[in-house]
Every structure is written in structure tokens, then in C-alpha cells.
């Protein structure tokens, strides 16, 4: 017997798990990746997908309430601002002539 609450909880668990996975992978990438560009890439994934899907999970968990609208607005804000800041960082680094990592450079 599948109840409505069960479905909601399943969606929340899947979304939080997705977000936590991206946070973990992004953090590992931030520590382990070789150069600035790939680290920025990892950190941006971490913010966008991780925080975004966890905020969505919170909205689903709250149900149809004013606070859920705020959560979705926050998720939209993160979805806009995080890639933009990543883009600005990478662009600034590229413009100042920061070299990227290559296999033959090691």
C-alpha cells in the first residue's frame, strides 16, 4: 500500500541524496583536482546541483505552503548566481593569463 506521504518522502529522500552526492563529489573535486579551472568547475557543480536539489527537497517536504515558494525562489537564485560567479571567476583567471593543467606538463 503506497500512501501519499510515502511518495512525498521518497521524492525528498531521492532529492536530498542527489544533493548530498553532488556536495560530496564537489568537495572532493575541490581538494583533489589539479588546477584552478577544474576546481572552480567542481565547486560550481557543488553549489548549483547540491544546494539547488536540497532546496527543492525542502520545498517538496513542506508541501503547498508560502515557505515552499520561498524555497523555490531561493533555488532559482542559486541556479542563477552560482554558475554566474563560476563563469566570472574562470573568465577573470583566463583573462589574466592563468595557464591550465595539461598531462604533458607534469
Amino acid at each position, binding site marked *: 500500500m503506497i500512501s501519499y506521504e510515502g511518495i512525498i518522502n521518497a521524492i525528498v529522500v531521492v532529492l536530498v541524496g542527489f544533493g548530498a552526492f553532488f556536495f560530496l563529489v564537489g568537495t572532493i573535486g575541490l581538494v583533489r583536482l589539479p588546477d584552478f579551472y577544474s576546481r572552480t568547475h567542481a565547486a560550481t557543480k557543488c553549489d548549483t546541483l547540491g544546494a539547488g536539489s536540497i532546496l527543492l527537497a525542502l520545498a517538496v517536504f513542506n508541501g503547498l505552503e508560502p515557505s515552499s515558494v520561498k524555497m523555490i525562489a531561493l533555488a532559482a537564485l542559486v541556479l542563477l*548566481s552560482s554558475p554566474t560567479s563560476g*563563469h566570472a571567476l574562470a573568465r577573470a583567471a583566463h*583573462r589574466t*593569463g592563468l595557464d591550465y593543467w595539461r598531462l604533458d606538463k607534469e
Partner: protein
Amino acid sequence: MKNAAVASLLVIFAIPLLIAVAELPPFGDPDAPIHTHISARYIEQGVEEAGAENLVTGVLLNYRGFDTFGEVTVIFTALAAALAVLLTSGGVQYFQEDRPPAPPKGADESERPPTPVSPVVLFVVRLLAPFIGIFAAFVILHGHVTPGGGFQGGAILGAMFIVLTIVLGAGKVRPRLPEPLARWLQGAAPLSFVLIGALGVAFTGFYLGFPPEHSLHLVRELMMVVLEIGIGVGGAAIFARIFLAMEAD
């Protein structure tokens, strides 16, 4: 001899102060007057008396309005002094000799035009800046009901100006904040306190006195909103001006 006189004078002054401190109730004592009388009064009657749903704002602007007046005056005088130092030195000087020399990357390096602003960043900032402004206005105007108020909203509004300055360039933002207007705006916080203080004299005979009658609930709320707007606008103006003074064109 002189040092000994100063030291003995200090000791003579210190003894009564230390005795007075020892007489104070111990910190965190639940039987201290502040917990049995003052806090209880604020919590039980603060919303009714101060006219603000948000107790923090009620205490800050109504019960302790005079302290906040002093605080605002001190903060804004300090900020104005910092701004004065920045403006008299003709903007901040570059320490060129301290910078590492730019890596040589070919002859055309010096002739490269300055980096244009990324269209992505430009679009997103243009999209988000009005929302930041609305949020700042909400935080300022709604400070007596929900957490927030003039200081927080002013910082958010100033941050909006800073983001716009970084992305659009100081040359585009500076005309929006003309010198004579900004000079008045950065004094908005103490000026609003003076205005509301004078209103308080008219109402109750006391500087910054809020009318206590039950029927004047709306007046108390409006006075608080005016104070919040003054603090917010003043804070935003002075943050924006400090940043503009540090930013070259």
C-alpha cells in the same frame, strides 16, 4: 613622583568602581532585576507598548531609542571620517612599486584593450539588481514586524550599489549618486533621529518620546518606520560612497 601621583589617583578611582562592580548581581543570575523586572516587562508588554511586532526593533528604537541615537551618531561619524580620509587623498593611491611586474607575454600585451564585462555577468546582475533592491526595501520597511531593519536593509542596499559598481563600472554608477544629494543622504540616519526626536518632544515633551496612548499605535509604528528608513538610506549611501571613493574609473 608624577607617575606615582597618577598611579595613586588611578587606584583611588578604581577602588569605588571595583566595589560597585562587586555589588552587581552575578552574570546570568536568574534573580537579578534585569531578569525579574525588565526582560519580563519587555516580553509581556513590549509588543503592546512599543508598537512593534518584532521585540528587538521595539527595544532598539523605542525603549532604548536614545542609546540607538548615540550608537547611530557614533557609527555614522566614524564612517564619514573614513570617507573624508579617502576623499582628501584624491582616491586611494596605487602602490605600483609593490606590485609584482606583469609577466612578459609578447609585445601586444600592453596594447590589449581593458577586459570587457562578460555579457553573462551583465545580464544576471541586471536581472537580479532590482530584486536585491526590493528585498532591501522589504527588510527596511518590514523591520518592525519581521527580523531585519535599517542596519541590515541598508547593508543590502549598499551591497546592491557595490555589485552594480563592480559590473557596470564606477563611471556609470557615480552620476546616479550626485555629490550634493549623497552628502545629505549619508546624514539621513542622525537627521531622522533628530526629526523623530523633535516629534517626540511635540507629543510627550521628551526627546525621542513615543506617545504611549493605545489609540496612537499607528503613530508609534510610523515613527519607527521613519527611523528605519533613515538608518537604511544613510547606511546604503555611505557604503556606496566609500566604495566609489576607493574604486577608480
